[in-house]
């Protein structure tokens, strides 16, 4: 019986030398060829989402998953084909037991993969591989449907835009289809810029044809003959794979002058984004495609009416489009069975931060934050207390511990001041300063604001100044109120969604962690011990075991003390880096305000 060896060649695994693993496996197969019992084929796949444990190698059809594979492991892997799996490369679960397949892995088992259905299974560079998994069947089906039928199906699915705003995809298509003004365009937004988010990248890297198929179906529905994929230039692998996918699909007669041999034509091309976060905003993105400065415009007239070159334009996010073929193939009502009443289907989240298992996860809408963080993510690193989770990227908000049971869907998150955004989820423990976190995002947005409208350009600058002051011990009475006033101006009168949602991190942290702001301003203390100007470190004599780990960790030699005797920190020499606290296993390193010690 032959085996297929799937080697993850997503961006994360590539960085961990997965190409060397591929080469080593190939060499080993060639060496073993003469006396091999089993035939083996190697396939380079897209990202499996569990990047911190990469490179990942899977053996099919045995369904064995190996993690952190080194080139040197090739001999063992090839030698074990058809026999017992290589125990040491299997994933070790929480109970210490090794698990063989992905389905037994707690990171994967609760996931339902729709948008990521093919990723990690197919070779993104191989059109036949996609077709063998039912690819382009949905397009074939769509060609036999009327535009009205396609749109109704998408409407029935309840699919909402995965880029952040959560607008109904079906309704968007219906409006665009209603305009009798040609040419029309379809645009795929692949300008994913949220820090920590990589779901769109993973789809473009690992399953580019699913996005192309989604675009082709959308083009049929609205009557577009030309489409653009706006992909940020930093996504080198995505650009390469999508370009190849377009060429392959055109060569195979799937796209191009005659879509699958029918009367429709569709030309798709890639536009590379120049690295501006704001170009993820639809109108700025379109300005950028047109060759103008990437600045948003007022959206009182929607892009579906007047978008690219003032023509009706449908713009969908990568993940949204990747869902379309499944909806057409299986029916909208099937898709709508998953999720909550108003948020249907699944959502891919980039679960990162202080959780034990980080990576890309696709779960049904409406699961609780607790399920995501504790069941899939395995809880907080070192079992520290959970403090907050930042959802939705820089314009999202921070959700505190008492709201962990909130269901994750578009409307609930918005109701509590955060947002779904593109699905970034940054988990923080008790050693994260919420003021500093908010300052980080304000600073990010300061740099990434286009600077076109006054509230965003000027308001964010002053917000950053005030937040920096607070973090550095120069906060004053009235700062919180001033921040709130600036936030109100941004929310109400900024030009685009970036500006309007920019206050979210500040407003949610004020709302849920006001006492932390007050501690900074009134008591000159950073309770989390993060803001250097407000923090000094000391060692609790009762807890110190004299293990000397902190002493070895300290980069400036500020820790003194003999082995097995209590240690002490020299406040004058200490640079407040917090290294000692990180390594201490006895919670002996404590923090206090700057002026008190």
């Amino acid at each position, binding site marked *: 019986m032959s085996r297929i060896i799937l080697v993850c060649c997503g961006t994360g695994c590539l960085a961990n030398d997965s190409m060397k693993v591929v080469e080593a496996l190939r060499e080993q197969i060639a060496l073993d060829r003469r006396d091999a019992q089993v035939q083996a084929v190697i396939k380079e796949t897209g990202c499996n989402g569990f990047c911190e444990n990469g490179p990942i190698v899977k053996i099919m059809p045995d369904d064995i998953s190996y993690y952190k594979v080194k080139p040197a492991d090739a001999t063992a892997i090839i030698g074990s084909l058809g026999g017992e799996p290589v125990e040491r490369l299997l994933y070790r679960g929480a109970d210490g037991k090794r698990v063989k397949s992905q389905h037994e892995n707690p990171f994967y088992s609760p996931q339902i993969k729709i948008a990521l259905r093919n990723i990690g299974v197919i070779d993104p560079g191989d059109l036949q591989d996609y077709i063998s998994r039912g690819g382009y069947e949905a397009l074939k089906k769509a060609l036999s449907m009327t535009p009205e039928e396609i749109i109704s199906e998408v409407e029935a699915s309840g699919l909402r835009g995965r880029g952040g705003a959560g607008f109904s995809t079906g309704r968007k298509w219906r409006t665009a289809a209603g305009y009798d003004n040609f040419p029309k365009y379809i645009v795929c937004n692949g300008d994913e810029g949220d820090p920590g988010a990589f779901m769109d990248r993973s789809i473009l890297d690992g399953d580019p044809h699913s996005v192309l198929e989604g675009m082709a179906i959308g083009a049929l529905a609205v009557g577009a003959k030309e489409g653009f994929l706006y992909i940020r230039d930093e996504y080198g692998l995505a650009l390469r794979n999508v370009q190849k996918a377009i060429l392959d699909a055109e060569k195979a007669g799937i796209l191009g002058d005659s879509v699958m041999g029918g009367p429709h034509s569709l030309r798709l091309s890639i536009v590379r984004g120049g690295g*501006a976060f*704001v170009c993820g905003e639809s109108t700025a993105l379109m300005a950028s495609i047109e060759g103008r*400065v990437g600045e948003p*415009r*007022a959206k*009182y*007239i929607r892009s579906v009416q007047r978008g690219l070159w003032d023509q009706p334009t449908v713009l969908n996010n990568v993940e949204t489009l990747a869902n379309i073929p499944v909806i057409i193939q299986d029916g909208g009502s099937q898709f709508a069975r998953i999720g909550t009443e108003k948020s249907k289907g699944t959502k891919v989240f980039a679960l990162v931060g202080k959780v034990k298992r980080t990576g890309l996860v696709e779960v049904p809408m409406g699961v609780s934050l607790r399920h995501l963080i504790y069941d899939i993510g395995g809880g907080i690193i070192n079992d520290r207390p959970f403090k907050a989770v930042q959802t939705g990227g820089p314009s999202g908000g921070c959700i505190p511990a008492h709201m962990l049971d909130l269901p994750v869907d578009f409307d609930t998150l918005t109701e509590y001041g955060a947002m779904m955004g593109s699905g970034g989820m940054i988990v923080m423990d008790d050693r994260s300063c919420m003021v500093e976190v908010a300052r980080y995002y304000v600073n990010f*947005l*300061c*740099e*990434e*604001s*286009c*600077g*076109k*409208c*006054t*509230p965003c*350009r*000027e*308001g*964010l*600058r*002053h917000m*950053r*100044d*005030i937040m920096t002051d607070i973090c550095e011990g120069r906060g*004053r009475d*009235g*700062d919180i109120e*001033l921040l709130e*006033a*600036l936030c*109100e*101006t941004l929310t*109400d*009168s*900024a*030009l685009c969604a970036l500006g309007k949602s920019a206050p979210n991190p500040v407003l949610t942290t004020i709302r849920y962690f006001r006492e932390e702001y007050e501690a900074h301003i009134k008591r000159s203390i950073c309770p989390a011990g993060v803001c250097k100007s407000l923090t000094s470190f000391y060692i609790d004599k009762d807890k110190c075991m004299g293990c000397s780990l902190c002493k070895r960790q300290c980069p400036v030699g500020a820790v003194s003390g003999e082995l097995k005797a209590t240690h002490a920190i020299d406040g004058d020499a200490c640079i407040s880096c917090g290294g000692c606290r990180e390594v201490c296993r006895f919670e002996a390193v404590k923090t206090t305000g700057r002026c008190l010690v």
Partner: protein
Amino acid sequence: MTIYIEGKACECDKGEYLLDVAQRNGVFIPTLCDHKGLAGQGCCRVCIVEIEIRGWSNVVTSCVYPVEQECKVYVNSDKIMRQRGMILSLLYKRAPESKEIEQMCRFYKTPELPRLKQQGGNRCIMCGLCTRACMALGSGAITTAYRGTEKAIATPYDEPSADCIGCGSCAKVCPTNAIKAEEGQDFRRIWGKTFRLMRCTECGEVIGTPEEIEYTAQKLSMEPAVLCEACRRKKIAAVMAHTYGENE
């Protein structure tokens, strides 16, 4: 269709911009980055107003808001005054030397906000009207550079631009007089470039830079101008008179 701006019934067509409707009906809405000859951009945001449609109220930017249905518009509601005040204060922090912004701040009794830092001596409020004028004229010599808080108006790489024809339109449209065109007896200096000034061959009045005259002539397929506006009229009148009048 009829909309009510500050209680005043105003007739308008569907799709007309709210600011235009207000101005036509004599209702004052403050503006900075608006210019009749150029499409609205909604940059400065002092023209924000509150609109109420079927009981739902919303803040919109009147220069780019197309009226689609009947609504009530409040130009100076409490909310708008608070926001506009904040926006003007922010602009004043950026352009503390601008007399225009100072006056508006006084008029709207904006908060002083001593806590916020000033940007430093400047008059520019970054509305970008100058770049739009330059683009509309077709030379595109200046544009916005960088983004976010670092945004600036500049020629490419801050070098004297080959495309600049020294027409000074940028300076003329600037709402805060932030662009300096230094003018002497026979030269004009703007954006780091010095231009000669051409004078009317009849009366000696300044008629522009050679580049500007050449550019206009090329665009209109005409001979480059040599006369000022007044002398040109006189000359045309004389030709007319010669052709149709006194000769007979």
